[in-house]
């Protein structure tokens, strides 16, 4: 496995549909289009932020990436040549430690019956990453790098506060020496001051171990702080993808613009020019025709409800899926 390949993960046209079953025999009556045609890649040592409203498929992207839920179609390639869904047995087992996951809720993602040292070290032992005689020292070192103390090794998760539990979750992921970590809303269950500690820790660890993150969050200010590239999702589609500076300075998609303008700014003198979106996100089981955003879009025209927009490259790695920027779409002049 080459670990020098520039893109840690490449996702091409990823789709994930969940069947809706009904009746006595569980007949499939429809499909929830949780993720549709999502394409992106993450370079080694960088962080990609994935934002969007709840139910837009952010978490499903994370899970499908790690093959925790099998994908419907599309490609996920790690390190340029590894297709996770084609690996079996020993190969899969040896690759698993390279990709890790940090969950949102530190209260339910730790086993209450295992002491912390065991939670962190369990997988290390299982994968024989360090010799048995160095095991204790290794766990201590990992705990230290995550801001936990050595003597806390024998304690149980209930003895820790939320922030410290999240540190344990991070230590558990880091212990396997991964290349790539999916952080699924790692700070949204935490208080503001604790949030800052965890974000700083994630950044420090990234520098130390040259980690790559997929950072899923609905908190745009956190995403702006931690990410290098940002993808915006709406109802299963990636509507815009660009570098952090580019997307925050120059959001193109009307949804991105509305989303960014909705963020409250902690300064009473700033009066935001707010774009209020009407209504709420439509059901992914029965998405609107054409552009899925057209029901809430303030720049919607006839063409938007008729055909789905293409994903356009606007240069500078900035892609957007909107008819406004497509001269061939028939949207007309702005």
């Amino acid at each position, binding site marked *: 496995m080459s670990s020098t390949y520039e893109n840690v993960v490449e996702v091409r046209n990823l789709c994930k549909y969940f069947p809706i079953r009904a009746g006595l025999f569980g007949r499939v009556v429809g499909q929830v289009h949780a993720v549709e045609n999502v394409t992106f890649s993450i370079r080694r040592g960088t962080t990609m932020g994935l934002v969007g409203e709840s139910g837009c498929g952010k978490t499903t992207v994370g899970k499908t990436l790690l093959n925790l839920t099998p994908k419907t179609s599309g490609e996920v390639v790690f390190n340029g040549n590894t297709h996770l869904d084609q690996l079996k047995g020993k190969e899969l087992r040896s690759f698993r430690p390279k990709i890790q996951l940090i969950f949102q809720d530190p209260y339910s993602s730790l086993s209450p019956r295992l002491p912390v040292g065991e939670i962190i070290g369990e997988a290390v032992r299982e994968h024989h990453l360090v010799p048995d005689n160095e095991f204790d020292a290794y766990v201590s070192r990992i705990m230290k790098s995550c801001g936990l103390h050595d003597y806390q090794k024998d304690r149980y998760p209930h003895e820790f*506060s939320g922030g410290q539990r999240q540190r344990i979750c991070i230590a558990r992921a880091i212990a396997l020496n991964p290349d790539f970590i999916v952080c699924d809303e790692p700070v949204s269950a935490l208080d503001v001051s604790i949030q800052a500690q965890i974000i700083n820790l994630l950044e420090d660890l990234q520098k130390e171990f040259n980690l790559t993150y997929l950072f899923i969050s609905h908190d745009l200010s956190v995403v702006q702080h931690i990410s290098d590239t940002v993808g915006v999702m709406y109802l299963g589609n990636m509507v815009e993808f660009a570098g952090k500076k580019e997307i925050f300075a120059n959001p193109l998609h009307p949804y991105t613009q509305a989303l960014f303008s909705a963020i409250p700014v902690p300064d009473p003198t700033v009066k935001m020019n707010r774009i209020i979106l009407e209504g709420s996100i439509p059901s992914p089981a029965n998405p609107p025709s054409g552009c899925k955003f057209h029901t809430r879009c303030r720049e919607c025209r006839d063409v938007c409800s008729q055909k789905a927009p293409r994903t356009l490259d606007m240069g500078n790695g900035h892609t957007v899926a909107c008819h406004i920027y497509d001269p061939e779409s028939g949207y007309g002049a702005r």
Partner: protein
Amino acid sequence: MSKKSNETSYISARESRRISRENQKITRRLDKRLSRKHVPEGEYLTQMRDTGNVVEFDNLHTYFFTDVGTVKAVDGVTFEVPVGKTVGIVGESGCGKSVTSLSLMQLVQRPNGQIVEGAIRLNLGDKAYDVAKMPIEAMQKVRGNVVSMIFQEPMTSLNPVFRIGYQLDEVIALHNPHMSKEAVKARSIESIRMVGIADAEGIYERYPHELSGGMRQRIVIAMALACNPRLIIADEPTTALDVTIQAQILELLRNLKSEINASIMLITHDLGVIAEMADYVVVMYAGRVVEKGLAKEVFLDPRHPYTIGLMESKPVINKTVERLYSIPGAVPNPVNMPDYCYFRDRCEKCVARCQGKYPPEVHVSDTHIVSCWRYFEEGGAK
């Protein structure tokens, strides 16, 4: 969490039983007082300090008597909510911001949670009541009528087995016993329409699970507004919602406030929401108010090290920092609160005086008050 603090928090079973017995004595006495019937109104009538306020919290102490010791959830909180204004209360979880508002509604979990000291003066226009002394019977007429509350999680604050209409009617009928059924229904539909739902008659017949999160929160707001309250307590009204829905709900609250001329007590941990909505800000830490003042004063010129730390630790959109500031340490154990400044152990700006007792309130300006020794000697002249 240090090694030491864990050792001191350990108590034996015997000790725990002793505490439990003592607690029972206290809570029984307090509970008896509250559950009396036919209490003369004069007992809880009081005078507002300033009739321009809807609510005045005066040195409020709300304690929880637990088997491991007394948790001083609210420990001497003083602030007021002026008529027609929005007061934002910020603080981390466990700082007592929710308990303060629950005390006002007398909804603190009894018998363990009790208001033990202080007064909450509630302005009813022609008279004022002291909520801390009010018996349960009298409180039921005030709750939901003069003061109403919007909770954080809209799904759990609506009953899943009743239709929206039934739940709204219940509130209105309870506080207006002389109204006819038709009038009650008309009022319910009117309040659904007020919160920006076009198809009010349709929604009236729906169940909560048929609505989205934002819609449910609108219904909860409609319920809170149904009896034209003088004060609305919004306890983290948008925390469970998405940013775009949050923007809708905040916009709605702002418009409704000016429409019915009510005051809002907005409890949240999101400084952005506070900055946008509030006229006054109260910053709480470990059961105490550490700083309060006009929103402009607190945001543009924060004085307390905790307030400053809180503001610096939050990433702000379009303002890049290399590294976020993080307040070191964690909130002290609520059972054994120190007698010195609660923030001292986490504070990086300590002065010699911090070794002494809890700092007094220092007036920075007429409206801006901070509890910190650093500003004590200057008397606010800095």
